[in-house]
């Protein structure tokens, strides 16, 4: 019986140590050989130190608050069987893992790491390759996705997943991640109060960043380059978009930024460079566009449908093929104090503001909207003459669509 007491005593000491968080090592030569085994043996708040090696595992359920820490990037190979890590507990940290071969399915969205209904999680320094979905946050909150690298090999939209996906989640920070070659780099659906910061999302099949029905979010300092289209923000409101770079999003339906049914948002300090369309705007109201640079785009702004109460102030429009295109004769938006490199007016009173207003909509952009092949006549003398006559007496373009105070110098 004495032995029994001793055993109870020892166990209680062990469990006390567990409360203090112990470290369980996992490696091929260790007593614990797999992550799954480690999770079973671990107590809450323990750290699983995963040593360098290859772990052929999938469907790892993290159901207690643990830290999964990789040492020298151990490889977790899912062998295309399905989901690899599923987190269902609060306070989980995943750090320094190299996860490959997520199973592809047409019925379930297998992810490399999924967080379900959990709070206060951190996923950082993780590298994902050969994936379907990357990091999938489902009904979770107050977490952080930091400094991960997601490199997919997506070719088609229908059989590929998103890099980082947030679904019904809130108060989450997505920062300094690199996402490439997936369907949508970062995808948000019904997710509010999200901060997306300093990520680099490139070469994705569909969008670099995609919002649906998500409000009160902000994204700043991100780079979106060479995606099917840069960023799509749809059916959302109060989105703050600052200091991002939208670059080289080329193609027939491509754009740097798509705004569809967006209200009460801010777009400031962004750079739109060499996109087929810089910003495509549909049914979006009360948005402030300020201090953005539109450089070498096919169309800097393409405005479709009813858009009211938007203001475009102090932006630079540099060497775009078309500055603004409108598909209606009505205009309820304000253009003021922008710099237009296509402006040919003068400033006799030297106050830095052109003396004659600038009309950013050319007749030719209407013709191209109607008959796309006519784009080949861009910069021809004939078109210049037609544009000039339209400028003198507008027939097709909104009469009041003009920047009354065009800046003479580029705004810094």
């Amino acid at each position, binding site marked *: 019986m004495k032995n029994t007491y001793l055993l109870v005593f020892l166990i209680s000491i062990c469990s006390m140590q567990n409360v203090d968080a112990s470290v369980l090592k996992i490696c091929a030569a260790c007593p614990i050989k797999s992550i799954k085994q480690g999770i079973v043996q671990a107590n809450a708040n323990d750290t699983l130190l995963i040593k360098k090696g290859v772990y052929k595992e999938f469907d790892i359920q993290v159901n207690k608050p643990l830290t999964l820490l990789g040492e020298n990037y151990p490889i977790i190979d899912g062998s295309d069987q399905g989901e690899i890590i599923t987190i269902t507990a609060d306070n989980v940290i995943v750090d320094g893992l190299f996860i490959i071969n997520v199973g592809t399915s047409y019925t379930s969205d297998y992810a490399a790491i999924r967080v379900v209904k959990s709070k206060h999680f951190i996923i950082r320094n993780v590298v994902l390759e050969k994936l379907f979905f990357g990091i999938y946050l489902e009904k979770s909150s107050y977490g952080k996705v930091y400094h991960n690298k997601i490199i997919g090999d997506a070719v088609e939209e229908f059989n590929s997943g998103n890099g980082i996906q947030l679904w019904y989640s809130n108060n989450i920070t997505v920062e300094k991640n690199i996402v490439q070659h997936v369907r949508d780099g970062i995808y948000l659906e019904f997710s509010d109060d999200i901060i997306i910061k300093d990520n680099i999302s490139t070469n994705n099949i569909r969008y670099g960043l995609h919002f649906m029905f998500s409000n009160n979010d902000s994204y700043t300092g991100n780079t979106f380059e060479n995606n099917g289209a840069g960023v799509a923000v749809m059916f959302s409101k109060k989105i703050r978009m600052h200091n991002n770079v939208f670059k080289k999003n080329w193609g027939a339906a491509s754009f740097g930024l798509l705004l569809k049914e967006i209200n009460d948002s801010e777009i400031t300090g962004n750079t739109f460079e060499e996109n*087929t369309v810089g910003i495509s705007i549909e049914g979006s109201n009360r948005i402030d566009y300020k201090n953005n640079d539109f450089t070498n785009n096919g169309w800097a702004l393409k405005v479709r449908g009813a858009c009211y109460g938007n203001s475009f102030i102090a932006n630079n429009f540099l060497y775009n093929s078309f500055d603004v295109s409108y598909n209606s004769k009505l205009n309820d938006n304000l253009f003021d104090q922008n710099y237009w490199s296509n402006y040919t007016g003068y400033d006799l009173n030297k106050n830095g503001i052109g003396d004659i207003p600038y009309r950013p909509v050319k007749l030719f952009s209407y013709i191209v909207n109607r008959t796309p092949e006519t784009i080949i006549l861009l910069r021809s003398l004939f078109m210049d003459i037609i544009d000039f006559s339209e400028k003198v007496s507008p027939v097709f373009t909104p009469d009041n669509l003009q920047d009354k105070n065009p800046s003479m110098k580029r705004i810094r």
Partner: protein
Amino acid sequence: MPLRQLQYPLNMFKILKYSFFDLMRSRWSYVYFMFYLLLGFVLLFLNNDISKAVITLMNIIIVLVPLIATIFGVMYYYNSKEFTELLLAQPVKRTSIFLGQYLGVAGSLTLSLIFGLGIPFLCYGLFRSMVIWDFALLLVVGGFLTMIFTALAFNISLSNENKIKGFGYAVLMWLFLAVIYDGIFLVSLIVFEEYPLDNFSLAATMLNPIDLSRTLILLKLDISALLGYTGAVFKQFFGTNLGFLVSLGTLILWTVLPISRLMLKSKRKDF
């Protein structure tokens, strides 16, 4: 026979040399040169932005260079008629005379263009800017247009003894290729918008050297807009190097064809 073969190109270069000297000393070469010099400086001064100046220049160049080359070519041909007759009586092959004169005119015009625009842009720090390739393209296109339109002008004057008529036809040709052609082009695109027009519009572009040069410029400046069009042929053409190569190749063809007609015509003509 070897002597004869050797003398042919030799004589041509001699004539080229003297035509060139003649032109380099003529007032008009200087007017042309000064015009470009002024244009370059004024544009750079007004814009104070080298990229913007290059874009403006590209728009101007594709219309103005053909006009100047046309007028200059016709003028030179008619003014040097007696010189030509003097040469015709010399033991020189006819094609050498006309090719030499043609190259003299086209060469001096091209040089005026290159130096006239080159100097102001160098002063404003071309080599330190990002637009050096745009500028190089500008000069290449300008050079081609000069060659093509001088050749066309020579062809027109060679076929018209009457100076006024020759002048009229030449200016009409310019007006047609620079403005009217695009008007017809645009109207036919709009009228037939129901049909696939990719091939038609590319072909129509190839058939006009001004449009062709414009395409080369579009490829450089407006590729973002061009890729917004859905047609597969367009995509293939503008999205790859194909467009650039085909345009350049056709431009060379456009240069070679009038020159060969010039040589053929010059062999048959009575003076």
